[in-house]
């Protein structure tokens, strides 16, 4: 999952970046509203966390530009503006959720998680259950059927979560790379192949099918 964080306070952004990365998200961070508009339209983000009081361009206007350009990117507004008038304005401008500062890291993570699941047409639950697999996002563990939970490495967790949010879809290597790595990361398609092999070793060979020339599909336990 790749997120765009637009926040002009460096200290807060630093802290948020590390929190989000620890939770297995690839994060691009921008401080200027105008940069955010361009990046949000160019890159295939899964979610944006948007501050409202931004230099260059107000967050609300950034959001309106995205929506005017037809982008359906899920947007979580993270702001100090806590009046209900402002919340109504924010959500009317096209935001999907609204969190006011200050906040707890867990709450932000829960909201991000819920938004991502909603964006992929799933009801928010404690565990993400798809195709006989149960993913515990807090512990970064997966459970196959009724077996003992298996621990996942950070990269494996990222990849599996993306698969599980897009079950039954054919995902190309490029697509996977775009959603798993941020702007600065080295994108090496071999790494994805290696990670998929790791996952197959843990979940079973048939859990992820290869479609030659197209990409991979999560099949799981075939329910």
């Amino acid at each position: 999952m790749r997120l765009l964080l637009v926040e002009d306070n460096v200290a807060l952004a630093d802290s948020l970046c590390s929190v989000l990365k620890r939770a297995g998200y690839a994060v691009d961070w921008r401080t200027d509203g105008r940069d955010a508009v361009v990046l949000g339209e160019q890159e295939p983000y899964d979610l944006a966390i948007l501050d409202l009081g931004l230099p260059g361009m107000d967050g609300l206007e950034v959001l309106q530009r995205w929506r005017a350009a037809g982008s359906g990117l899920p947007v979580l507004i993270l702001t100090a503006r806590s009046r209900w008038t402002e919340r109504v304005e924010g959500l009317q401008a096209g935001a999907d959720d609204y969190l006011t500062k200050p906040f707890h890291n867990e709450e932000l993570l829960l909201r991000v998680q819920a938004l991502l699941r909603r964006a992929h047409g799933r009801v928010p639950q404690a565990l993400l259950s798809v195709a006989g697999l149960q993913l515990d996002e807090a512990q970064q563990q997966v459970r196959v059927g009724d077996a003992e939970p298996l621990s996942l490495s950070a990269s494996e967790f990222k990849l599996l979560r993306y698969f599980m949010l897009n079950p039954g879809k054919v995902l190309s290597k490029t697509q996977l790379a775009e959603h798993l790595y941020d702007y600065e990361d080295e994108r090496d398609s071999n790494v994805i192949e290696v990670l998929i092999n790791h996952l197959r070793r843990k979940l079973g060979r048939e859990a992820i099918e290869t479609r030659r020339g197209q990409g991979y599909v999560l099949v799981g336990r075939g329910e």
Partner: protein
Amino acid sequence: MRSISRRLAATLVPLLLCSVLLIVQGSVWLYDRAQRNYLTLLLQRETDSLLAALTVGPDGLFLDLDKIDPDYRRPYSGRYFVVQGREKWRSRSLWDHRLPLPGDGLQSGLLPGPQGQELLVWSGEYRKAGEPVTISVALDYQPLMTEFRRASILISALAVLVTLLAVLIQQWLLRRSLLPLRRVQQELAEWRSGERLHLSEQVPQELQPLVAEINHLGAQIEALLLRARNSAGDLGHALKTPLAVIESRLDALAPSLPAEQLTELQAQLQAMRNQLERTLQRARLATDQSRAQRFDPATDLPALVQTLASLYPAVPEIRLDGASDTRWPFDREDMLELLGNLLDNACKWARARVRLSWRLDAQHLCVEVADDGPGIDRDARDQVLSRGLRLDQQTPGHGLGLAIVRDLVAAYGGTLSLEQAPEGGLLVSISLPRERR
């Protein structure tokens, strides 16, 4: 309280009465004098005719009664004479009354006559046929006196009437000229209740400076409030982000900190958050202040409900129950804050249903927010209200929302109560007076 109209009347009435009475008395006096002068002339002429009636006979002078006016022969006719020569002749009309014979000319006062008459007397000394003769002629002045008295009473009554009329006219004029002031006062009341942004300048010239001053003052207050609100907002924004950084760092540090210290720090942070939020809220309240925008349930409520629906996708239904055709006579932002916090709370706790009903009558706006959640125990309700306690630490902001609502309701002079909802959960009912005293 001092009243301008009463004070004006109190000065006008004695002034008018005094001057009118003075004029009445003065004119009566003047007329009396003129009358006496004229009658003196007549009396003089009468003396002349009496002198002519004195005829020189063989025994000296005698009064030829045929030559004098018959009035002098009718007793108490009001016309009398006494002629004193060698002999003394008295008019028959005097009957047995004695007319004193004072000196020369007109007597200064009126002399008592017969039957209570008051006589104007004129005397003259002459010489006829070598004999000294003193003639006194008198005329009853009483009928004229009576006439004067009646006239002066009549005129005085008329004067009182005129004074009364003058006072009435004055009061009417005063009320008329104070009418613009009353209109200004009405407009000020409208201003206070937010139906108007400034006083109309279409007033009489005398009131123009006052109205201009009031408008100026209003604009100044508006600007001050705006600045206060903006600086409160700026302060809030400035403090919230660092607070968010601290909170975020603290969360990251949580595993390596002793649990006791962590709880302590978190509690302090929470207290700062709440205090900041409530202070900001209070600074932003606009109860007495007339911003143009009123709360319009037809457009604002659906927007709010939609907002809550996206914040709480799990709560399927927020039912609205009330008339949407009239705007509420309260500030839009404050009402959004009030309803937003109430509905936010309700949505947090509701299982499936939240109800918002409202009723706007001539005196009050009554709002009820109910949910079908677990509700709050009777004992705990008081605690929630009195201290803005959070009952559930897991759901952030609960309690704080109610505290903000309580501050808001208090600022509007309304009432807030927590009850058991028929739906099963908590029922918050609020009543706000339309006119704040």
